């Protein structure tokens, strides 16, 4: 990096100014283009074809998209709509909980009351398990015949009946993922100046006011991050409903989300229908992209 600096020093200041950002963002930009962008473009091309992942792809233009979006009779249209419905439902339920619950815990831990260090590691712990282990734990907790809930006399099949399956799905998701957002909020809150709290305390501000007027505004950039990532992550949900809402071992999950539909098309037990799967993935991707851009627009406008 030192040699880089010298080299550019010989050039005119203006050129140097223009090239400087490349030194910082260039390496990643290349890695991104090769390992992220290229595979996505490849998927985009596949979405215009009929392909079983083995033979030669056959170009079909927009046929896959037409089938998914406009052919009401088609299995792919129905599956897409059903998957999207459940996915959007999951996003709507999971995002607020996955933002507010860890935020609340981060604020409580920020007070540094007795035991907070131990408790925060407990809250973080579930994040470290794989989703299959998490699924097994929760299936066993919620099993009405053999599980924890049986002790409390619960006789409902909690993981396959409405509305319980949704409630349990969200609880399990939050339990599993909360640590991530919590750690981020903790790091963000740790950076807020103590002086601010102290001067607010002198002005007689209540705890709630300190949160509303000092803590939250100070961590707004981090809040935006967690919001965007949690929304996108929720759109890509797959493991949680698959593991939790199966109708017994090997049965089809009660809550089918879009990623399941896509995975089954591409890597199901029949011949792969990769073109259709890719087209669904692209549509979902565009959906996520638009939602993310709206979030960026709405939140950055305030600044």
């Amino acid at each position, binding site marked *: 990096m030192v040699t880089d600096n010298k080299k550019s020093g010989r050039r005119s200041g203006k050129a140097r100014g223009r090239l400087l950002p490349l030194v910082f963002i260039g390496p990643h930009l290349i890695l991104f283009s090769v390992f992220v962008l290229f595979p996505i473009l490849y998927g985009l091309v596949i979405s215009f074809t009929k392909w079983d992942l083995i033979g030669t792809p056959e170009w079909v233009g927009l046929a896959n998209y037409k089938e998914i979006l406009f052919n009401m009779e088609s299995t792919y249209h129905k599956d897409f709509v059903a998957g999207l419905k459940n996915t959007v439902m999951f996003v709507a339920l999971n995002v607020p909980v996955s933002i507010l619950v860890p935020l609340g815990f981060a604020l409580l831990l920020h007070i540094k009351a007795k035991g907070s260090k131990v408790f925060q590691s407990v*809250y973080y712990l579930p994040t470290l398990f794989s989703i299959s282990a998490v699924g097994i734990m929760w299936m066993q907790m919620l099993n009405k015949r053999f599980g924890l809930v049986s002790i409390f006399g619960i006789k409902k099949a909690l993981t396959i009946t409405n509305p319980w399956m949704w409630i349990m799905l969200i609880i399990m998701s939050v339990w599993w993922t909360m640590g991530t957002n919590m750690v981020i909020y903790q790091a963000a809150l740790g*950076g807020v100046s103590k*002086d601010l709290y102290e001067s607010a305390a002198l002005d007689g501000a209540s705890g709630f006011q300190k949160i509303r007027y000092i803590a939250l505004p100070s961590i*707004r950039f981090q809040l*935006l991050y967690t919001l965007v990532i949690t929304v996108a992550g929720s759109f890509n949900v797959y493991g949680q409903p698959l593991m939790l809402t199966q109708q017994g071992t090997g049965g089809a999950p009660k809550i089918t989300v879009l990623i399941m539909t896509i995975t089954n098309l591409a890597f199901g037990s029949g011949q792969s229908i990769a073109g259709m799967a890719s087209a669904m993935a692209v549509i979902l991707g565009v959906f*996520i992209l638009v939602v993310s851009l709206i979030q960026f627009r709405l939140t950055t406008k305030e600044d």
Partner: protein
Amino acid sequence: MRRRERVMKAMVSLWTGIVAIIWIVPVVWAFFTSFKTETEIKTKGFGFLPKEWTFENYINILGNTDNAPIIRWFGNSMVISVTVTVLAVILVSLTAYGYSRLDFKYRDTLFYMLMGISLFPNIINIIPLYQMMTWLKWVNTNMAMIVPGLGAVTNIFLVRQFSLSIPREFDEAAKIDGAGEFAVFFRIILPMLKPVLTVVALFSFTGSWNDFLWPTIVFNDVEKMPLTAGLKLLNGAYGGFQLGPILAAACIAIFPTFVLYLFAQKYFLQSMSLSSGIKG
């Protein structure tokens, strides 16, 4: 005032403590159940403490060194995850600095684009990615585990957001004193980003440690696999109904990441108390 604060702190302790106890129930169950016999798990109904302690599940996993060289997997995972963590922290801090504190045309638009694109579902991606690995001759090597993930954007986004919340006055003051862009990066911004970079290190390490679809695709060689991919082999398709070994494997797998978390927590609580007072 003091008294009120003490009462409040006690209430917070109590409340966070109760939640923590509820929170850990499934984990405690999993831990104890990994010491139960299969017969007890399947036939004795729900319970926490084993009626009869057995180390059979652990012996089965750790002792099966031919089919499942778990110590070897452990080492492989360590090499991969440590390398990923070091490279990611360097790359992420550099890139995030570029997208937050340098001024160039379309900076934010470019960044939002990268971010948006990277959120696309990546199910089909393994086909072209594997293709690239064969071109690069990276199949069955750690490179396949380390490099592609460095193209990710989320951690850059995270650090960028932290960097954006550091007031501009810091760099400007330093620049007036004649500091160059690299000096500002290394001496001013990087130290302030330490807490979030610890978080990035934690996320990178656990993310790489827990990744399991990709490693099973790029590794054919059981000897070269990382731990989670290897342990997945133990949850067989046909023998998958044995809960004891699966839970024992899960407990083994999270052990290193949990230790790392404890270190990270200690370090970042420390570095946070050092850096507090920045934002205003």
